[in-house]
């Protein structure tokens, strides 16, 4: 049987990204393995510590950097995370200084908001309504 075990966000600075994704967003570090000059560095949701891992992938490929910047400039999220209560999470994160390019809004069956992960990506938060 095939399973999704890892997905990734590209980051320019893995240490800085780990700080943001754990201390600000609230993920937990799962694996941290040296790989040459970089690290195989993953985080997981506290609610699903055996679930899909998010790889904080070092940005080491120029075309990917161009792609990442194009998405960022257009406000397009690199990926999306689910939260239980978007309004509460928005308040908590703005209190921590996180910048949002889209404030919470309802779109059909979901509420969405888009934040800047300080690592070069827009990240969408969603709450199923």
């Amino acid at each position, binding site marked *: 049987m095939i399973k999704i075990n890892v997905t990734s966000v590209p980051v320019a600075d893995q240490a800085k990204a780990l700080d943001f994704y754990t201390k600000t967003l609230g993920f937990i570090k799962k694996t941290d393995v040296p790989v040459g000059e970089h690290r195989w560095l993953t985080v997981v949701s506290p609610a699903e510590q055996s679930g899909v891992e998010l790889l904080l992938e070092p940005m080491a490929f120029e075309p990917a950097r161009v792609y990442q910047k194009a998405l960022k400039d257009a406000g397009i999220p690199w990926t999306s995370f689910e939260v239980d209560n978007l309004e509460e999470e928005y308040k908590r994160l703005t209190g921590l200084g996180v910048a949002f390019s889209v404030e919470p809004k309802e779109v059909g069956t979901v509420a969405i908001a888009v934040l800047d992960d300080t690592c070069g990506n*827009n990240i969408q938060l969603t709450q199923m309504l």
Partner: protein
Amino acid sequence: MTKSAKTFYELEVERFAKNHLLGEHLYVQIRQSKAFMDEYYSDPIDLETMASTACMSRFYFIRIFKQMYGITPRHYLRDVRMAKAKELLKSGLSVTEVCFDVGYESLPTFSSTFKQATGCSPKKYQKMNNGNLE
């Protein structure tokens, strides 16, 4: 952060919302049925009950729910129950207790549904997560 001009993405979201969403009252009705399933997943819930919480006929309800969420209401209810079952199994409840607590009346049906949803039996899932309580 002071907001500047809207991004391409924000404009696309607005365009989608304007041109492709269904009537607002339908979202209110369907969300009522979803909220009902979220709260009463542990009770036996039939299609008639689901549809009545949305004030719709059964067939219209199924069609609109699927159009909005991408899955049928029955599949949504199954997903809610399976998510809850995983939590309860991790908490140490027996498979039989979990089966009834998440609204199933038959252990074989619960076990096969759980296996289909997670790839392993409830017993195996509990064993795998025994030393890794989340």
